[in-house]
C-alpha cells in the first residue's frame, strides 16, 4: 500500500471519530488553540483547518455553547458542551464502545 493511500485512509478513519473526540474534550470549556492542544496531548493530531471549522459547525448545530471572553489582552471564543451535545455524546460514546469491542475482536489476530 502506498504512503498516500495509507494517509488518505487514516484520514478517513480519524474523521469518523473526530466529532466524538471533540465533544468528549469539550466537557470543559476550551478555546480553539487549547482544544487542539488537549487533543494533541491525547494523541489526536488534527490540523487547525479541520478542527476549527468543525467546532464552529457543531456550535451552529446547538451541540456546543460558546462565549467570547477577553484573556491575555485578546479575545477568545470558548466552547463547551451544551445539554443537547452532552446527550449526543453519551449516545455516540455508547456506539463507540460497541464498535470498538466488535473491531477489537476482528483485528485481534492481525
Amino acid at each position, binding site marked *: 500500500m502506498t504512503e498516500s493511500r495509507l494517509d488518505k485512509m487514516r484520514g478517513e478513519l480519524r474523521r469518523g471519530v473526530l466529532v466524538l473526540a471533540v465533544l468528549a474534550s469539550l466537557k470543559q470549556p476550551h478555546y*480553539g*488553540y487549547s482544544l487542539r492542544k488537549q487533543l494533541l496531548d491525547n494523541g489526536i493530531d488534527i490540523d487547525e483547518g479541520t478542527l*476549527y471549522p468543525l467546532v*464552529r459547525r457543531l456550535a451552529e448545530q446547538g451541540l456546543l455553547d460558546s462565549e467570547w471572553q477577553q484573556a491575555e489582552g*485578546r479575545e477568545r*471564543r470558548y466552547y463547551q458542551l451544551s445539554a443537547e451535545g452532552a446527550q449526543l455524546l453519551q449516545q455516540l460514546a455508547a456506539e463507540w464502545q460497541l464498535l470498538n469491542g466488535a473491531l477489537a475482536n476482528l483485528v485481534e489476530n492481525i
Partner: protein
Amino acid sequence: MELVQRYVSAVQRYLPEEQQAAIGRELSADIADKIAHQSEEAGRRLTDSEIAALLQEWGHPRRVASQYVPPQPLVSSELMPLYWQVLKLVLALLFVWQVLGASMTLLQAEQLRPVQFILQLTVGFFDEAATAFMVITLIFYAQQFGGPLQGWVQQAKWQATDLPPVERPWQQIGLGDSITELATTGFLLLLFWYPLWMPAETLAGLRVVLSDVVQQQRPVITVLLLLSVAFSIWCWLKPYWQQATLWVNLALNLAFICLLAWLASLDAIVAGTAQPLPELLELSDINRVLKHSAWLVGLYLLYETGRDLYRLWQLKKPASAA
C-alpha cells in the same frame, strides 16, 4: 499583525457575506493564539517571515474558507444518478432532433453538402445541449430546497423481482445504440418520404429521385422502417437483450438484408430527372455507389444476425456455463 489581517481578509473574500465577519473574527483569534504560543515557546516576538510561514501552514485562503463553509454542490449526491440519466436522455433526444433537422436541410439543398450537414448538426446540437444542460442543472439544483424529486428518490419503491433478468454483460443495451438506430431509421423515413415534406420548388429542382420500382415498394419499406422505430423505442424503454428482443432484432435484420439485397440487385435505385446532373457525375456512378453501400450494410446486418443467433444460443445455457 498586518500579515494576519491580510490573510483573514483573503479568507473572507471566499465566504458568504453574512458569515464573513463572524468567521473572520474567530479565525483572527485562533491565529493570534497560535502566534502567541509560538512566541512564548521562542521567548520573543515572531518575525514577519515566521508569521508568513505559520499562515502558509494554515492553508490557502480558499481552502480554509471552504472548510468553514463547504461549497454546495449544484446537484446532491442522492440525485446525481437520476440527473445523469435525465441529462443523457435529453441530450440523446436533442441529438436525434438535430440529426433529423440537419438531414432535412441536406435533402432540401440543391447540392449535397456533407460539410454543411456536419456543421449544422454540431453547432445546432451544442447550442441546444448547452441550454438543456443549464435548465436541467437548475431544476436539479432547485430540488435541494425542498423539490419533489428529492423525496421521490428517497422513497422510491422497488422490488428485486422487477429487476431485468440480465446475466451477461452484452445483455445491456446502451442508450447510444438505441439512439443511433432511431436516428438512422428516422433519417431513412424522411429520405423515402421526401415528396411529403419537400417544398414543391425544391422537388421540381431535384436532379435524382428514387426509381419507379423503388417507389412502388415504398409502403413495404415504410412498414419495415416504422417497425424498426418502434423496436428502437422499445429497446430504449427496456434496455436489455432477452430471447424475445433478440428474435425480433433477428427478424428485422433479416427483413432489412432481403430489402438491401433486392436494392443491390436492381438496375437503378435512383433515376434522373429533367434537371441535369453536375459535371463529372454520372447516374450510373451514383447507382453503383448506392448498390455497393447496400451490399456493405447488408453484410454488416448479416454479421449482426450471426451474433444474435450466437447470443440466443448463449441465453439457452445457464449463465454459469457461459
